């Protein structure tokens, strides 16, 4: 079984879709539970990835089958330290997202749940593909279910947001396809491990191909100033869509940088690093400032993603294993923390149909349990030590400081702004005199508690024992940093 583990992860959601097709659309609860159990099974099936992972052994759980033999394009799957936790994050957050939509989605449950499962397969495919074209296929495939989720189950301007989302990201990916074809023409294969071993591109070509790949990834991250599709999509998306969008889809961008752009074109890294680091730092400060000015909770969280993803890009281009490892972990952290914030905002929205701060205020009195979990989510996002966000941010900044103390200083200043806007959100929602418009608010129910508790437990596990994660991540980032540094030395 273990040798087909990754294929199983891709297929189980599709089996779930097939089951959903067979269930009559009136049985909404059966549909919901079928979808949830599918995602839960997939999460459980993904756990052996962690427990059987051999630290530092390169690609594992590899699968290889000829797909288009004439063109030397193959079905090649595998995980390493870069992708391991993103796979686990995806299976976990997919279950969370499906469970969070039980009461929020009441129309066309069948189609909705089917799309969620299709989305899971596409996202997992992105993280486990070791073939360039297979990767591209999943990359583009993941757009369709998300665009439909926003466009059908979203808010008032859902069509605008959905179209913007799909066109913006597809336009970003267009150049990547061209670059992938160039790469294929040079290497004669689309197999990533083979390309990494055999490819010897001239530096000027690396610089341009890196640009083409990085552009696609930067849109997805999203890196300032390519980020404006994100708030639009987040505000209109249903809660579960936001959880997946912020939690997993954005990581495809930063993952792509580390999986493809940097190792394939190491000579281009020093050329583009100053620009990318600058944009990342601008994103940290800018995203935080714009978040501070928002009057709606969901938009605030959306812009906080711009700032937080800036930290990750900063870490990726810090040039050392510390920043890179922490960046990988921070992808997971951001997925969990921001996913939880979107979930908590969704719990309120479901009841009050408003995301404006001015419609809330002082509700901690009314919903004490909700308040505690909201504060925990906010503190995790603020980067409070003992919880997950701190580990990523602190080590990223520490790693960055060694090579670029100016960028690290600006990034560190970003933590002041993060405290400012997140505590403002806490204060506007929970503190102050009770706004009687919220008298009908109920506290969290068992289903919501299950989600919140599972997330918070992970916050603390990562925050207290990050080495459980770093031990698997670090060999991969070490190798990556090594690859870049030896190339740079060789070119000098």
């Amino acid at each position: 079984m273990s040798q087909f583990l990754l294929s199983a992860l891709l297929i189980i959601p599709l089996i779930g879709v097939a089951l959903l097709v067979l269930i009559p659309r009136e049985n909404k609860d059966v549909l919901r539970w079928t979808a949830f159990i599918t995602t839960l099974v997939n999460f459980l099936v993904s756990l052996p990835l962690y427990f059987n992972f051999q630290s530092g052994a390169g690609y594992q759980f590899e699968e290889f089958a000829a797909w288009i033999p004439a063109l030397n394009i193959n079905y090649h799957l595998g995980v390493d330290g870069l992708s391991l936790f993103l796979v686990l994050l995806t299976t976990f957050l997919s279950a969370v997202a499906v469970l969070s939509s039980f009461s929020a989605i009441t129309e066309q449950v069948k189609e909705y749940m089917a799309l969620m499962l299709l989305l899971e397969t596409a996202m997992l495919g992105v993280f486990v593909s070791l073939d360039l074209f297979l990767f591209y296929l999943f990359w583009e495939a993941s757009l369709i279910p998300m665009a439909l989720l926003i466009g059908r189950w979203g808010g008032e301007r859902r069509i605008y947001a959905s179209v913007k989302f799909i066109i913006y990201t597809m336009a970003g990916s267009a150049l990547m396809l061209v670059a992938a074809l160039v790469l294929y023409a040079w290497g004669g294969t689309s197999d990533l491990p083979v390309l990494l071993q055999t490819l010897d591109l001239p530096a000027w070509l690396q610089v341009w191909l890196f640009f083409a790949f990085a552009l696609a990834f930067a849109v997805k991250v999203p890196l300032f100033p390519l980020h404006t599709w994100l708030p639009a999509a987040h505000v209109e998306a249903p809660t579960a869509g936001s959880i997946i969008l912020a939690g997993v889809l954005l990581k495809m961008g930063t993952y792509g940088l580390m999986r493809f752009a940097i190792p394939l074109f190491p000579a281009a890294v020093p050329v583009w690093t100053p620009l990318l680091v600058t944009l990342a730092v601008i994103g940290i400060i800018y995203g935080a400032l714009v978040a501070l000015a928002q009057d709606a909770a969901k938009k605030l969280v959306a812009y906080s993603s711009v700032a937080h993803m800036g930290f990750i890009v900063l870490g990726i281009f810090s040039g050392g294993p510390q920043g890179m490892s922490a960046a990988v972990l921070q992808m997971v952290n951001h997925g969990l923390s921001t996913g939880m914030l979107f979930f908590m905002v969704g719990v309120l929205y479901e009841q009050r149909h408003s995301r404006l701060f001015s419609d809330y205020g002082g509700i901690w009195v009314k919903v004490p349990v909700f308040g505690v979990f909201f504060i925990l989510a906010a503190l995790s996002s603020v980067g409070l030590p003992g919880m997950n966000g701190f580990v990523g941010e602190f080590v990223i900044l520490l790693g960055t400081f060694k090579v670029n103390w100016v960028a690290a200083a600006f990034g560190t200043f970003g933590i002041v702004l993060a405290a400012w806007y997140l505590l403002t959100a806490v204060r506007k929602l929970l503190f102050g005199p009770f706004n009687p418009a919220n008298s009908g608010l109920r506290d969290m129910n068992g289903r919501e508690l299950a989600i919140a508790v599972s997330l918070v437990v992970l916050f603390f596990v990562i925050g207290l024992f990050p080495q459980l994660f770093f031990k698997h991540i670090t060999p991969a980032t070490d190798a990556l940093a090594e690859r870049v540094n030896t190339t740079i030395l060789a070119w000098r």
Partner: protein
Amino acid sequence: MTQLIWLTIAFPIAGVLFNGLLGRRLGHRVVSVVGPLMVLASFVVGVGAFADLLARHGEAVNVPLWTWAAIGSFEVNLSLLVDPLSVLMVLVVTGVGFLIHVYATEYMVHKDESGHAHPDRDFARFFTFLNLFIASMLVLVLGNNYLMMYVGWELVGVCSYLLIGFWYDRPSEEQAPIDLGEGAEPVKLPPLLSPAASGMKAFIVNRVGDVGFALGVFLIWTTFGTLQFADVFSQVPHMAEAMPAVLSWIALLLFIGAMGKSAQIPLYVWLPDAMAGPTPVSALIHAATMVTAGVYMIVRSNVIYSHAPGVSMFVAVIGAVTALFAATIALVQVDLKRVLAYSTVSQLGYMFMAVGVGAYTAGMFHLTTHAFFKALLFLGAGSVMHALHDVIDIRRMGGLKNKMPVTWLTFWIGGLALAGFPLMSGFFSKDEILAKAFEASPVLWGIGVLTAGLTAFYTFRAIFIAFHGQPRDRHLYDHAHESGPAIRFALVVLAALALVGGVLGLPAFLGLPHALDSWLAPIYATGEHAAAAGEHGLSLGLELGLMATSATVAVLGIVVAYFFYVVNPAIPRRMARSLRPVFVLLANKYYVDELYNAVFVQPGLKLARGMAQGVDALLIDSVLVDGLARLVGQIGRQVSRLQTGYLRHYALATFIGVLILVGYFFLR
């Protein structure tokens, strides 16, 4: 007990989980037992570690926990350091912490006229946070590396945030103007921030300092390749020769963190507003323990600071200026807790003056005695509030000594200790600082003595107004009553400590050992740095002279306060009238809050709005992104007009095309 030192952290964490998860259901009586008990258990473990350490003659022991992270050259092994400094802090934190927990079991319950007890709505949450604070503070002082110090540092900050904003739904309060009598226009006072706003302010101002701390930690790692104290300190002497500037930068960046946490200029502004929290919180966090973390940090890093003389002098100057500055504001405050808050800022300044001139023991000595007498004073103020239905304005008090004899007497003891009255604990610790300051610079000493006089004056101004004279608010006075046994217990024990705490560090000329100095000796860099407090370069005559001066100044301050507020209360009003601009300036705290608001907060918010509306929504999204999309659409529409559908147009186009081609071939 040394190997079990982790239990000091584990007990309060257990309390957090128990009271946090079950407290609401089990009721306030169970919470009242579990909360203080966990801290007492920590204290007992701390005493055990103390006894072990005594038997080991102060030899440090590391108690390893687990590997936090190991990424290439960045390796952090979490480990607890049991040494004289950390054990002293553990004893202060858990000892004073336990007393304050006991106190809070009564303070957080209000009894109505018929004697029914009404615990605070969030009684369990209060003790959950309070236990969490103790655990966090112990992480800060017990960690054997800068990462754990930073972790504890941030955690106590968040506890402070949560506890200042404990009554999160209370609004901001107006303060009644100060009447100067004789038809003079009353002096308006700025309104007090709401608890929620105060908590946020505290957290954000602290985070500004934390940026410095974090950068300092990064620089330590970049320079030394490790964050473990012992490994860093052993490399310092070598580094001091190789790269002295880097050491100074590290010292300066760490001190920026201390400015935030320990409320020094320019980051002190959050501490007075922190008084919006419940009084036990003010006593525990904002007087006795958390705010002294910066002093602890510098003493812990004494090896670095003693190799950065310039930065150390800067620390001393900031401390001295803060001490004087805050004391002047305290002169005119009408809110009893705020008098004490500014006094705390001022006394922390004293401690920084001490560590800045290299008198690390004196700094720790004052930290300890201050923990006793300032916690006592805050708890006394809380006892008054408890009796007066949360009234804290001294203008509505008066004559309370008859109603609350225990509170009055213990408050007097605390006041005498704070004022530096001879033979009280504060006298010895303050005196040691002043002597050391004199050695470094007579100017620092002068500022210190002046501050001491002001301290004695404002402390007794508050005491005379609140406890002596005639009741000013008859109704409040009639309902006032002495507090119950839990509050009295904490007051009496702390008063005893404030009385005799001086024995920890008796002056050298008495011929008795300076207990604290010999206790702390192992933590200091040996060789070039002479840390012994007893041995300074002053002659006996000079030392006695300095001592007599500060004693005189303290007594003088008390006497003046007596004349002003008991004998002839018209004098201070007359002075305020004639020096009105000065009085207004002080009453408005030098307008520093207004300044920061105008220079940092409002521009920050304006910038944020400008970015959101001007840059993000308009420039990037509408103009660039959607503009590009519109442009593409426009081009498409324009080009599509060529596709008219008329055959003749296509025929014409084909004809022109053929003409061009033919022409091209002919003319080539």
